[in-house]
């Protein structure tokens, strides 16, 4: 009892300790942060606010107070959730990141504030500090000076198939220019804009091109056009979670629906001046009960982009595709191996730029190991309109001899267009200790292939056939249960029988049979005589023991044994008395046989009527 109590106490204390550990871990892993895409914006401009809540584990927060956004107009709001897994101390840890993104518009000039955000989980409260946003511009006025007043209103009321006469203006719509500025005061009711975030960029630097339809009447269906594919550029569609969605905007004091139709990142491949094709599209305004809608073709102005060459001279290790801002990391796993046992050299680059084209530095080997062709994994993680991502290159290295393999620092030179200079990233040297041994067989063993998109890897070494495990178990168990029930029932029946009067008599009969065998073997006349008297007393009453020969025959016959049988019994008893005191063994044996034969007769009587 004492031991079991001790075990219970141990279990209780362990579970309590685990519970406290879990709760402490949950409490310590609550994080809340808030970021704005810009802290100084022009009046009427939009910017993005991200509120990111990180929770270690899958518990929901008890309370989440979002920031006060009353100083701004909330154009759009969406939520996303991302979970990441890691192994900590042999256990799987999960961190869930809840992201709420707001697209805000600054409506009034001045210093505004995005209020504090708080989250509470258990006893822990996380806070994200307020963010101050400076809104600049002229209060109460949103229109700008027209770029070309000559442009007409042709696009607004043109019938189906008509092309708005806008291309000739060749005005450049960039971030610095208000939409529709090229029309001056004669702003049409519907027009297209092709906006770029910059008109001059280095080779390989990202230029974001956004195509938008401005319309004062809502469209019947969302316009769809393919993205920009200008010659001489690498073109990638932005995938930062911002879905094309109509919003409303005030242009020159008039309210417009704005439909973003394309959103692409382009990277110049060679220096020069390139004119982007205008955005041209036929759109269908929604009709009304009184009027039927008419398709309208709108066309944006063309945009000219100047692609600048990279500064000369470039460092010797520079590769022309590496333009952006990156962080280079490298590692080897494991760092201690045996000869023939492979290790993996992992080179990882995280950053922004044309990540699809980044070329990672490679280790050429030192002749003491065999290098397998590397596998490269590229993951896009675009953020806030910038192409970004992660590239992981894994090289399997199989050492051929014992000793130390030193991997010299890997160097990656990147041109940073934001800073306008070349930046060199370098890893630390890495050493792998190679011990004696043979493990070549494992060199080509495949590893679990990581599947993109958050899916778990493939299973390796699988059995392709499904075997229904233990499918016979219920049948075997059922058969055992039936057999057990039958055996149990039989046993109970036997016991009941044994406990009854007849059963007891049978038991005594069996005991007498055993004793009779012994009496016959030892030629024991007295024993045989006693056994016969016992049998007679049991069946016909105890008084038969004391009866003399004449009386006994009468008693037995009167109590149902039958006259001849009773006479036979009496004769056997008389013969036995005579033989007991007579000289010689033959008469005794004969007497014993006679007595036991009568005993058998008596014990074989089936019923009280004495029929043998």
């Amino acid at each position, binding site marked *: 009892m004492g031991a079991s109590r001790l075990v219970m106490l141990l279990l209780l204390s362990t579970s309590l300790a685990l519970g406290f550990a879990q709760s402490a871990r949950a409490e310590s892993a609550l994080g809340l942060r808030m970021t704005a895409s810009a802290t100084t914006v022009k009046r009427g401009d939009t910017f993005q606010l991200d509120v990111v809540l990180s929770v270690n584990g899958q518990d929901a927060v008890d309370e989440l107070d979002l920031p006060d956004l009353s100083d701004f107009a909330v154009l759009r709001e969406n939520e996303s959730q991302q979970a990441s897994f890691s192994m900590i101390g042999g256990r799987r840890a999960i961190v869930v990141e809840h992201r709420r993104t707001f697209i805000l518009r600054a409506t009034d000039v001045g210093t505004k504030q995005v209020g504090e955000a708080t989250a509470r989980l258990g006893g822990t409260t996380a806070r994200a500090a307020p963010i101050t946003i400076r809104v600049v511009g002229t209060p109460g006025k949103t229109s700008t000076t027209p770029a070309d007043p000559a442009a007409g209103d042709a696009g607004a009321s043109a019938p189906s198939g008509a092309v708005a006469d806008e291309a000739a203006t060749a005005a450049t719509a960039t971030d610095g220019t208000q939409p529709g500025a090229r029309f001056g005061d004669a702003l049409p009711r519907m027009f297209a804009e092709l906006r770029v975030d910059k008109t001059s960029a280095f080779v390989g630097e990202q230029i974001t091109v956004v195509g938008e339809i401005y319309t004062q009447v809502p469209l019947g269906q969302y316009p769809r056009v393919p993205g920009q594919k200008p010659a001489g550029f690498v073109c990638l569609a932005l995938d930062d979670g911002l879905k094309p969605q109509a919003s409303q905007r005030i242009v020159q004091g008039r309210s417009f629906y704005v439909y973003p139709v394309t959103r692409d990142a382009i990277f110049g491949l060679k220096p020069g001046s390139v004119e982007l094709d205008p955005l041209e599209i036929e759109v269908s305004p929604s009709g009304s009960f009184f009027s039927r809608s008419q398709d309208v073709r709108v066309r944006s102005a063309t945009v000219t982009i100047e692609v600048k060459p990279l500064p000369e001279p470039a460092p010797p290790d520079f590769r022309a595709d590496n333009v952006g801002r990156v962080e280079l990391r490298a590692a080897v796993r494991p760092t201690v191996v045996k000869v023939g046992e492979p290790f993996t050299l992992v080179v990882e680059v995280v950053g922004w730029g044309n990540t699809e084209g980044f070329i990672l530095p490679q280790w050429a080997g030192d002749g003491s190991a065999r290098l397998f062709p590397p*596998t*490269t*994994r590229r993951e896009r993680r675009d953020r806030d309109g910038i192409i970004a991502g992660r590239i992981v290159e894994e090289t399997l290295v199989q050492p051929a001899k014992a000793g130390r393999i030193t991997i010299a620092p890997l160097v990656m030179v990147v041109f940073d267009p934001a800073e306008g200079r070349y930046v060199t990233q370098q890893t630390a040297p890495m050493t792998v200790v190679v011990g004696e041994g043979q493990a070549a067989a494992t060199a080509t063993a*495949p*590893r679990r*292939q990581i*599947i*993109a*998109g*958050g*899916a*778990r*890897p*493939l*299973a*390796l*070494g*699988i*059995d*392709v*056939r*499904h*075997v*229904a*495990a*233990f*499918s*016979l*178990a*219920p*049948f*075997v*168990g*059922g*058969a*055992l*249960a*039936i*057999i*057990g*029930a039958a*055996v*149990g*029932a*039989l*046993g*109970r029946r036997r*016991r009941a029988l044994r406990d009854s009067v007849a059963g007891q008599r049978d038991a005594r009969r069996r005991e007498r049979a055993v004793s009779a065998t012994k009496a016959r073997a030892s030629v024991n006349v007295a024993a045989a005589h006693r056994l016969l008297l016992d049998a007679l007393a049991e069946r016909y009453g105890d008084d038969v023991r004391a009866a003399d020969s004449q009386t006994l025959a009468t008693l037995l016959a009167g109590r149902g044994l039958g006259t001849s049988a009773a006479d036979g019994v009496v004769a056997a008893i008389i013969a036995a008395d005579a033989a007991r005191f007579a000289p010689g063994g033959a008469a005794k044996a004969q007497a014993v046989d006679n007595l036991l034969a009568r005993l058998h007769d008596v014990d074989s009587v089936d019923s009280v009527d004495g029929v043998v």
Partner: protein
Amino acid sequence: MNSVVLALLLATVADPRLKDAERLAAHGELDAARAQYQTIHDELANSGADASAALHYNLGTLALSADDMGPAVRHLLAAARRAPLDDDIRHNLATALTRRADHVEAARQDAFGARLPPGPVTLVLGILLGLLGLLLAARGVLSGRLAVVAGRGLVPVLVATVVAGLAFAVRLAADGAVVAVVMLETEARPQPDKGAGGFTIHPGLTGHVVAEQDGFVRLRLENGVDVWVDHAHTSVVP
């Protein structure tokens, strides 16, 4: 006899195509790896054998990586049916269900029976039945203290056996449910009639098969809505 030996050998010797598929996957040739697994799966199906949870998992995961949502959901559901407690299968199935084009109002809820692991449930029931038989036999055959102990143990074992039997029955019922997955973008109609107007449903959407008629199946979608879908555009989860 020889064919039995051969079949046993084939069952115990690893299929070299599996290694090929693994190598292809390790080198990023996911489409080729998927084709290899698919060939093995088709051969198993033609021979009447049942594919394992792992094979369905790999096929579903590779389909998921190719954004082929119909086969992805179908194979991952099949894998989950065979190994409902496998964490990788559950994770990838949840990922596939999230990535579908159709987001139904009600989240997919597995029936209780579908979440019970078939092997352990069967084994536990078998063990309890066997134990019940032993106790019944002991109670009848033994005498004295041992018989009393056997008699006392009989009631809890009987209760546990009944519970295990119920779980087994629920699991059998879940296995018997016919679930179909939409494999191609198609129309969901209120009547089994190609002329009946409806709405578009996309690959990966699932539903219980309620009825079949004139080349259409009646599906009870995850949100409880009953629709008729072209039979050729759906596939039953094996």
